[in-house]
């Protein structure tokens, strides 16, 4: 599925991975997390190989995957509980993280009492609680509506600004990738290889109106061109290129060529 795929991520860097549907983006994340053994090759964090499910990795799945029978606080502290951390210290650490994601007043709520966005924030808090060296995000916003998603992206930017966690983000949204990441890796279809490594030259902290800037549009257009090449498809002639912010495409529904990226990666 993956083939001669190799890349490095510097510390504190946020790298987005975009690629055609079925190119194995999610598989790649699972290999990095140690959930799937690679047929060959290796994954290393700070020079030490990842084997089995590595506690140095925090994962935010596509769905929040909260335990419905646990309150927010107990959901966030779940990884520490499994690791045998005593109740007192895991509680204070969980409260700290609830504060980081802005849910401290919902510590005693059950997941079904929270909105979709809040649930995903909880799962981010849970992924961060073991202080991971690497945070993996597997299309974490795909289940949210467009507006929530936008707000969420901004929250995530703020969160990264504070925690500076090295992150790998799989997404099928080009604007999202460009807005959030320092680098965008474009994968080809199966077998997946890295066909482009696009640096995002936008200063941090980023703001919502960055989406309308020329630098943003240029980068997004570049990523899209690489992606289209990876798909071996030509962009339609009427495609708005650099004049318009690319995320209009996202908000105003899906042009036909964009559809393949919907759903599972």
């Amino acid at each position, binding site marked *: 599925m993956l083939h001669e795929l190799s890349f490095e991520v510097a510390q504190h860097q946020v790298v987005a991975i975009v690629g055609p549907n079925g190119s194995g983006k999610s598989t790649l994340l699972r290999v990095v997390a140690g959930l799937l053994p690679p047929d060959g090759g290796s994954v290393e964090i700070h020079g030490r190989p990842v084997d089995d499910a590595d506690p140095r990795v925090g994962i935010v799945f596509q769905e929040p995957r909260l335990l419905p*029978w646990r309150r927010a606080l107990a959901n966030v502290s779940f990884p520490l509980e*499994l690791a045998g951390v005593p109740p007192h210290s895991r509680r204070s650490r969980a409260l700290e993280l609830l504060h980081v994601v802005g849910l401290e007043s919902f510590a005693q709520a*059950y997941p079904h009492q929270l909105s979709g966005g809040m649930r995903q924030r909880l799962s981010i808090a849970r992924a961060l609680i073991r202080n991971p060296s690497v945070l993996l995000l597997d299309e974490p916003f795909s289940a949210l509506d467009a507006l929530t998603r936008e707000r969420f992206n901004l929250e995530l930017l703020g969160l990264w600004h504070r925690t500076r966690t090295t992150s790998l983000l799989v997404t099928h949204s080009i604007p999202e990738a460009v807005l959030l990441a320092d680098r965008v890796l474009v994968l080809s279809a199966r077998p997946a290889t890295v066909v482009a490594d696009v640096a995002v030259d936008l200063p941090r902290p980023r703001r919502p109106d960055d989406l309308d800037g020329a630098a943003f549009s240029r980068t997004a257009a570049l990523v899209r061109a690489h992606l289209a090449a990876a798909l071996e498809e030509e962009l339609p002639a009427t495609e708005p290129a650099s004049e318009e912010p690319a995320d209009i495409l996202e908000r105003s529904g899906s042009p036909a060529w964009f559809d393949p990226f919907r759903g599972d990666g």
Partner: protein
Amino acid sequence: MARLRAALPVIGLAIAFLLGWRLLVLLGGYPVFILPAPEVVGERLLRAWVQGTMTPHAVSTLTAIGWGFAVGAGLALIAGYLLARSPLAARLLSPYIVAAQATPILALAPLLALWFGTGLASKVVICALIVFFPVAVATMVGIRSVDARLLELGRSLRATRWQVFRHLELPAALPAILGGFRVGVTLAVIGAIVAEWAGGDRGLGVLILLARGSLFDIPLMFATLVTIALIGLVLYLLVVLAERRLIGAWR
């Protein structure tokens, strides 16, 4: 006040039932050994409890139900888990479990009474047998329905097998298991009475036989039936209460 209003139709239906019963006796003119009037049964029920006729039998039956349910449900939880998680166990055990369930307990009871005697043991065995199937099936279904994505989460957090069971599988399966308990607990009552009929020396089932036979006290027989029904009702409500406590908050 709102609670009272909610209870009103329930009480109303109960009164209507008793009135209908009374009317039937009145219009039919049935003798007391065919259908005693509700107040006759009520008076006999009260007397049986006050005089201590009922108590030892009720205690004996309840003990059998308690142990039978505990043993049957306990074994069913283990079997249900194995059926869900081990294809080999499912292939090996399923035929026996289904065959045991398909054989009428009424036909088995005399044999079991012969093997285990007239005391508590045979009653517990029969109760356990009848409780086993619904709880085992409910557990199997519950464990199988655990979200694979939650299990992957557990794996990513390096949860041990026991932790996966304790924190993921058991709570996720609990609603289904408790559904099995609801069925199982009412069947346990039936199991106890059947066991007592098949050869018990004590218990509400025995008291029914006595009341119909040597005592020929039909109101007492009805009073015993009412007691049995009440036991079933209370046990069922206990399961419902447990459900509310355990899963009410997050469902």
